[in-house]
Structure formats: C-alpha cells, structure tokens
C-alpha cells in the first residue's frame, strides 16, 4: 500500500497544526461558528444531534493492521468504544469532543492517516473496488490511480470551494463493485489497442435528484487522467449552480447542458491543458504502482475444489460462511474473506474497538497485514490462504464478525438516520435491526439469493436507497416516522434507479411490507436462478402493488 514519504508526512502534519490553530481561534472567539464551520467541515468534523462527528478518510478503503489498531485506540480513548464504516469506505466517530479533535488528527497523522476533505464542497475520498488487486475479473488494480487522484485533489487550490461536494470512484474490473455509475465522476479502466486508459462517466449521484452517470469519453489514455478531471472540475466550478444547494451537484449541470453539451465544454478546456504539466509521466505511474505490488504469495495448488468440498462438510455454520462470505481469489491457493459487519440485530457498519483490534491481528497473521473497507459497510481480508480459512472463520466468529450473510438481504446498508443525523426524517438503524432479526433464518436468506437492501433516513440518500434492489426511505409525516418502499434499483454495471411502489408505511408495518415483497418474489419467480431484480424487471410494479395495497 502507499507509504508516505517526507513530503506526504509534512503535508498531513501541517494540516494538524493548522486545525489546532483554527480550533484555538474558535475557542478564543476570534472566529465565529459560521466561519469555523467550513474549516471544520474540510476536516470531516460535523455537528450531529448529540455530539460532533468526525469522519476519517480511508483512501480507497485500504488500511494496514497498524492503522486499524490506531482506529481502535481512537475509538477507546476519544470516543465511546466504536466506529462506523460508511458507504464511502471511510470510518466515522460519533462522539469526539472539539478540543480533542486536533489530538485525534495527530494520532491519525502518526499512522499516515487524516480527515482531509471528508466533508465540504470539495473533492472527497476517491473510492475503488473493494476487491482491487485480487478480483479474478480485474484488468488492472485501480488503487494506484486513486492514489494519484488523492494527491492531486488534496488541497487543490482551485477546487476547495466547489458548488457542492464531488465524489470520484474507480474500478478496474468488468463487474462494478464500486458503484461508479452513481458518482460525480466514475472511471472504468479499459484497454484499447493494447493501451490502458479510462472510460469516463459523469453526473451520477443519488440524493433528491438521483441520476446514473452519462458517458462523456469512451477512452482516455491514462497519462491524461489528471488533465481531464481538472477540465471537468474547472467547467463545473465555473458553471455549476450556486443558487440552490439541491441543484448544485454536477449531475444538474450535465442535465442542463446535455451530455454532449457538457462534453464539448470539457473537451474544449481539456484541449488547452492536456499537454501541460498535468500530463502524467510513466515514472510517476511506476512510482505509485510500486507501492501496490502484490504481497509475497506462496506458490500453492489451486484451491477452488477444496473450498467447495469444505463448504459441503458437516459443519453447517462453517459451510454457510464459506459459501456466502468467501470469494475466489486470482492467485491459486488463496481466498478472499468478506468480514460481515452486519450481525443479527446490530447496527450495520458499526465496529467496536475490540473488533478492530481483533481484525488487525487477524490481518497480520492471515492476510499480509491489510484490511479493506467496502462501500457496503463490511471489511475484506483479501489474501487468506484457503487452507487456513477455518482458523479465520473461528476467529471471526469469536469477534462476532462471521455472520454468513454477505450479499443477502440482511447484508444491508443503513445510514445513521435520526438516531444521530441532524438532517434525518426518520430512524434507519432500528429498522435495519428489526429486519435483520426478523429475517434471521439462513435457509430463507439463501433461498432469496443475492439481494441488496439499502436504507436511508432522508432524501439525501446516504444509505443509497435508490440503488438497492429494495430501498427504504424514511420520511416524516406530521411528526411521525414513515417509510417508503422502492423496488428495482441496482448499483452495479446494470445500474438503475428504484421506483417508489406506493404510499409509505408506518414504522410498525414496514418490516411486514418487506416480508410481503420477498414472499411474492419467492412464489412467482421462474426459478431460484431468477434474481429479485430480474424478476422485478420482468413483472414490473403491478403485482407488488396489488400484494401490498389490495386490502386497503
């Protein structure tokens, strides 16, 4: 993984000093809360309902064991013993004190971490496929490119005050596990005539006006990565709307100009800068790529057959876990383990300090000391020798991180909702907890198959409800919590936005409504091979409406 050199370290150290000074000035009354707000936000420090919230950047989700231990230490020392993995591969702490935040940032800087640009109207953490480097369908590891983007975007002097926040995601695989089509810029690594480059997608996003990206470039040679992004940002910075924060994302500008109109502007700007110093050098690619060299794998026989055989063994708990939470690795003899942060009845994405420490140790002994956070609020041990899977399973079981539910409906995404979030209309976590408890039956879950459920506590859609096969959106009806059900969304390469099925359900009916939706699917699908989303696309909304609302 990327290792800071003296310059990287100096930049984060100076950031800590800067924020310490800013906090001091705020506490001395030299700057008002209004002036302080954008400064703290650019360090990921929000004000939530019960406390400040600090969002720490995890570039493209990748962490070393040492960093994970530091996150555990921070949770214990400055917070209430836990953290929360977010849908952008970051971690949030819910209870830091303002006066402690400079110290927390200093602790982070000591392990090459920071909270830079995790909020505010700037370029946010660049996310990537969580199976980067190990997926079988990968063309190239996207993380070196993410790191190049991270460096370019860090304190970019021209783009620190954009019309709105800006999110970039990169995938190097054919299947899209990074949800690139719902980002402001989505980049797909592609190959053309033996040359590496990117397909450039822009203007995706959720929130009030959900949009799937539009393609503005079929092939961008990789040396132009930064000049092209800079051109996109420059057009957006000048022409994005600033009069209405709900119309300020780049997707609205792309809507207004049309994909072609937007492309024309970007290409005109790009033509003026593509051969400037922004053009990346081979030397730089090599330097950064060197940091992501594969770990020293052992030469082992292929283990696909062995894993399949183990999963049919008599130990059902282990077998289920192998089937659901273990994925094939590109290197023979190794497996990818997805660590479920979705225990039955738990808050999706919450991890305790002890769990973090346990994960750090496990990564060290069994996965070359690395952990990746996924945008689905889980974690990945990417390089586990297949022959040691049982040990890993036992250890994860002890830690409460082995729920065999990856990809199933209880592997749901949920935002913090009204329990924490100032903007929320309704709670998300208690709904998630009730669903996970109600549906806690392995046979039933596996029969339902791959099915994504995503819950947001308001229209801002941090829980990505539009792109859940099933989405739940909390709304406020004269002071009471109601939930809308959306069906048919997808975040992958077949990205689509779900549609509201009908009137919202009160809190005590939403779980049953979900059960009805699932029951209908099971009764009427052509075979277990027909996925929920395929079924929905075939039959449409009508049968669901009938089932849910007929008696009313």
């Amino acid at each position, binding site marked *: 993984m990327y290792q800071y050199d003296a310059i990287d370290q100096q930049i984060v150290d100076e950031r800590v000093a800067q924020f310490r000074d800013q906090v001091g000035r705020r506490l001395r009354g030299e700057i008002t809360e209004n002036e302080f707000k954008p400064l703290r936000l650019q360090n990921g420090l929000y004000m939530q309902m019960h406390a400040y919230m600090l969002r720490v950047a995890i570039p493209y989700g990748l962490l070393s064991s040492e960093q994970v231990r530091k996150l555990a230490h921070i949770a214990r020392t400055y917070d209430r013993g836990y953290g929360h993995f977010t849908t952008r591969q970051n971690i949030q702490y819910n209870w830091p004190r303002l006066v402690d935040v400079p110290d927390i940032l200093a602790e982070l800087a000591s392990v090459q971490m920071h909270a830079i640009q995790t909020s505010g109207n700037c370029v946010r953490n660049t996310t990537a496929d969580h199976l980067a480097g190990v997926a079988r369908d990968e063309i190239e590891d996207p993380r070196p490119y993410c790191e190049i983007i991270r460096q370019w975007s860090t304190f970019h002097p*021209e783009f620190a005050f954009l019309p709105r926040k800006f999110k970039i995601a990169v995938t190097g695989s054919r299947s899209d596990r990074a949800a690139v089509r719902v980002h402001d810029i989505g980049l797909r690594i592609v190959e053309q005539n033996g040359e590496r480059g990117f397909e450039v997608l822009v203007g995706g996003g959720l929130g009030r006006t959900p949009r799937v990206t539009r393609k503005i470039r079929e092939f961008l040679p990789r040396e132009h990565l930064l000049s092209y992004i800079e051109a996109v940002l420059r057009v957006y910075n000048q022409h994005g709307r600033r009069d209405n924060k709900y119309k300020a994302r780049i997707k609205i500008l792309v809507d207004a100009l049309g994909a072609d109109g937007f492309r024309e502007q970007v290409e005109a700007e790009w033509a003026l800068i593509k051969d400037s110093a922004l053009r990346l050098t081979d030397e730089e690619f090599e330097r950064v790529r060197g940091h992501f060299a594969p770990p020293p794998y052992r030469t082992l026989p292929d283990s696909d057959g062995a894993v399949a055989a183990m999963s049919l063994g008599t130990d059902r708990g282990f077998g289920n876990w192998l089937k659901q939470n273990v994925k094939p690795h590109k290197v023979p003899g190794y497996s990818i383990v997805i660590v479920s942060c979705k225990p039955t009845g738990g808050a999706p994405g919450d991890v305790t300090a002890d769990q973090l420490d346990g994960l750090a140790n496990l990564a060290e002994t069994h996965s070359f000391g690395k952990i990746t956070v996924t945008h689905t609020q889980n974690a990945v041990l990417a390089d586990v020798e297949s022959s040691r899977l049982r040990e890993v399973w036992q250890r994860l079981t002890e830690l409460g991180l082995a729920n065999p539910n990856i990809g199933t409906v209880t592997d749901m995404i949920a935002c913090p909702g009204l329990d924490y979030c100032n903007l929320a209309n309704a709670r998300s976590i208690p709904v998630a907890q009730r669903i996970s408890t109600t549906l806690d039956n392995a046979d039933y879950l596996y029969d339902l198959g791959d099915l994504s459920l995503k819950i947001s506590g308001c229209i801002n859609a941090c829980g990505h409800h539009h792109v859940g096969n099933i989405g739940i959106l909390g709304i406020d009806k004269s002071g009471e919590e109601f939930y809308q059900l959306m069906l048919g969304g997808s975040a992958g390469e077949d990205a689509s936005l779900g549609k509201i099925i009908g009137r919202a359900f009160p809190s005590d009916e939403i779980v049953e409504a979900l059960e009805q939706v699932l029951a209908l699917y099971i009764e009427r699908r052509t075979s277990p091979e027909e996925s929920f989303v395929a079924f929905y696309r075939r039959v449409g909304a009508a049968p669901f409406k009938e089932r849910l609302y007929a008696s009313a």
Partner: protein
Amino acid sequence: MPLPKLTSAPRTILKSGKLVADAWVHLGDDDALPATGDVLVSRERLLTQAEELAARRGAGHRVGVRLTTEDSAQTAAELLDRVDLVALYVPKFADGRFFTTARLLRERHGYQGELRVCGDVVPDQVFYMHRCGIDAFEVPGPRYRLEAALKALGTFSESYQGALDSGPRYRRARRSIARAS
C-alpha cells in the same frame, strides 16, 4: 447597491507576503470620481466612463477594475489594457468561482499586474488564493484576521498539484526521504 464587506481606504492589506498601507478607493457606480488618487470601479463603470478613466490614467492616477464572481477570466482579459489592477470581489467566501478566474487570468491570459481579492475574504482561504495567483488581499474585520491571513500564507510548505507557485510534485525534483521506514 453597497457591496458587503468591502473595506475602505486607507487600510492595511496583505500584499506580496507583507502587511502594507493601501489607499485604493472603491467607488460605487454612483459615487463621484475624486479629483486625484487610485480608484477601483466596476466593469460597467469602466466601460461607460471609458474616456474619463483613460484620461485619468494618462494624468498619472491609477485605475483598477473590480470584478464579481459572475465575470469570467475571458471577460476580465478583455479589460486588461485599460487597468492597473484587477480586484476580484467575493460576495460570499463559498463562491469559489474566483479561484478559477484568478488562475486563468494568470496562466492563460498572462496578466502580470496586481491581482487582488476583496469582499468576504476568510483568512484561512488565503493559502489557496495565493496558489491561484492572487497576490493582494483585503481582509475585512479586526486586525487579528489580517494577521491570521499573513500566517495562513505559510500553512503548508509543500503541495501536490501544480499551480502558480510550482509545478506538480511529480515533475519536481524528488526530495530525499527523511524518515527511515
């Protein structure tokens, strides 16, 4: 309409890395033109009063234009031979268009004169502004804000991306790595 947070002369500004006395007068569109001194006017006034202002320059007084965040670098570039100074007026600090305008004026249109920012200037933005080519800063409010702005110029001693002060890091000579790993 009065422009919020515009400071009045004489004032102290941050210029070329120092706090200095400054006497440029911001004129509103209806304010009478004083007999002498350096004046800053809006783009509209610069164009409608073109002859008078040109004559004033001929007589040894300086004239500057005060652009808004609505004005693009292209618009500004067309005015450069009429002025001695370009000021970018920022109505709200979050309106970040002026960063692009400043940078393009320098990099694309070759403007070499004083590039000043005024209005809702927050000290903590000064580092970014400076990298975009702004070299003079009117900071409204108490003196400690001006001092904070001066300090903010030196917040970071390194940067990743290219701007007015340096090229991108990957094109600079690599500094030796201080920390042993």
